[in-house]
């Protein structure tokens, strides 16, 4: 087998992808001008993820290539999710028993100057 048999992505596809990426960039900037409350972050992340998937599947050719590489990427991403999730299990739940208190002393002194008096 020679490399000539590698999948060649047509210029038309590449152009279409860059156009979509440009539009999505504008959309994400536009969306940020409105305060959507708790939806701000998920929407920004959703658009970024769509953009990234286009780059990965077409520009990086994962759609056409070998499945092992897709598996490698998936494993890497799962590890990122594990990393974030398990740390949040700590940082979001501090103070769940009396052995730890949530928040820092610095914070409690700022928000409640009287809190130290008890």
């Amino acid at each position, binding site marked *: 087998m020679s490399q000539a048999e590698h999948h060649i992505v047509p210029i038309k596809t590449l152009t279409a992808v860059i156009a979509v990426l440009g539009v999505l960039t504008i959309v994400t900037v536009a969306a940020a001008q409105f305060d959507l409350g708790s939806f701000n972050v998920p929407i920004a992340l959703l658009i970024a993820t769509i953009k990234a998937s286009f780059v990965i599947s077409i520009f990086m050719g994962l759609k056409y290539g070998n499945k*092992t590489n897709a598996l490698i990427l998936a*494993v*890497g991403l799962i*590890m990122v999710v*594990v*990393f974030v999730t*398990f*740390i949040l*299990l*700590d*940082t*979001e*739940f*501090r*103070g*769940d*028993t009396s*052995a*730890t208190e949530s928040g*820092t002393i*610095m914070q409690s002194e700022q928000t409640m100057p009287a809190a130290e008096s008890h």
Partner: protein
Amino acid sequence: MSATAQDASINFLNYDKSLKSWLFTKDHKRIGLMYLVAVSIAFLAGGILALLVRLELLGPGETIMGPDQYNQSFTLHAVLMVFAFIIPAVPAVFGNFVLPLQLGAKDVAFPKLNLASFYIYLIGVVIAMSALLVGRIDGGWTFYAPYSERVGDSILYVTTGVFVMGFSSILTGLNFIVTVHKMRAPGLTWNRLPLFVWSIYATAIVQVLATPVIGITMVLLFLERFLSIGIFDPALGGDPVLFQHFFWFYSHPAVYIMILPAFGIVSDLIGTFSRHRVSGYLFVALSSVAIAFLGFLVWGHHMFVSGQSATSSIVFSLLTYLIGIPTGVKVLNWVTTLYKGSISYKTPMLYALMFLFTFSIGGFTGVMVGVLGIDIHLHDTYFVVAHFHYVMMGGSVIAGLGALHYWWPKMTGRMYNERLGKIAATLVFFGFNLTFFPQFIMGSRGMPRRYYDYLPEFQQMHQLSTYGSWVLGVGLFMILGYLLMSLKTGKKAPSNPWGALTLEWTHTTPLPHPHNFTQTPVVVRGPYDYHLVPEMFENAAEDGSVKSVHDVSQPAS
């Protein structure tokens, strides 16, 4: 043999004896040997420090050094042993030497990268050790913030050094994964891979996935020290517990970088020396990969008293058991492999059986410190020190010594003195247990770790431990002695001294140059299918060596 005009007297050791040919070699075998020399020096230095630390603890108060020297000694011992010795040891030495051979490949996938990672490792060690010239390094290998940020500029060198060594580890892991995927000989399907290959493969996955995080952690620690970015330092509004999460996200999986290769070695040794198919081959193989992944889910069990939330402690404790089960089942599989086998007690096998003993103790005490209620009491005491020495030394190092004795003839072409080997193994076994078992007892009685001084009630146990370290030291120096001696006076090794079936034993000893195999081998059976080739052993010599498969009959291609 086919068109090979290869001169049998030319091998990979003697084709070019110049120093330059070694330093610039891309041959995985020579790189493996260079790693062997480098990690042995690190082990020697770390070992001498350990003996000094034990000597200081012979009595309470000052024995041979003051508190600052003591604190630096145990820190340096740990940094050397963890980052410069045990993490690169088995994967880089035996992985490099044996993995391509067991795969029937001519080399690893990226030989240049392989040489580069050796030099990156050396540079990392040099940078880390140059910290000694700058100032003190203490606080243990864990570098917990904010203490590590207050020690001084020397932390700059240690973190950079660890970062660089991590890079070397990543490149080695990456190289091995690709090698296992792409370089297997024809017929060598996944379920015919030797278990050593499986374990190195699992190790490589951990190296690639975990090491980048210690990289960014070291970068952040570095920036925190010099730019006060306030991420980990509580005085600047940072969170020191976050540092521990970052650190253990790498360092717990790193424990599996250290122990998984040992599982592979022990599987190969027990299979070979009992001439028996390893019981539960598929389970032992796949559980290595499973352990590699599960190893990422349990790091918080190092942090039960760190001030992390109870929720995460509970989740981490539960997941810790998930990893205990497959590990325990592996031990049972190794023991059942002996059943109805034909067990030969050569030195490597002694180490394999020793591993089953010491590693099991390490494993069971691991279950104990994983129990939430008990760990509160045992955390950061000598119980934990004893536990991880039973796993790291009793597991990885003992298995590594087994591997060294097993592959020594293939690496050097010489046999060592079997009698001395057995004596040294016995000394190591008793010395090791005498050193570390008393630490379980004093730890559960409350003796904290990293203590320069201690209360008189712990003295008896500390003394036993120190005496043990001397026996252990004698055993290890003896090994160094007779192995070096064998290079000069050892008798020439036959090509298959143990009667093993994996591919590295199918060729002359030492291996030929320039290629590992004069012909691409074709694999037709599993790595431990002794029952399929009884004819191989019909003419076995008195010492157990056999003519290699290759010499007997050429497998049909």
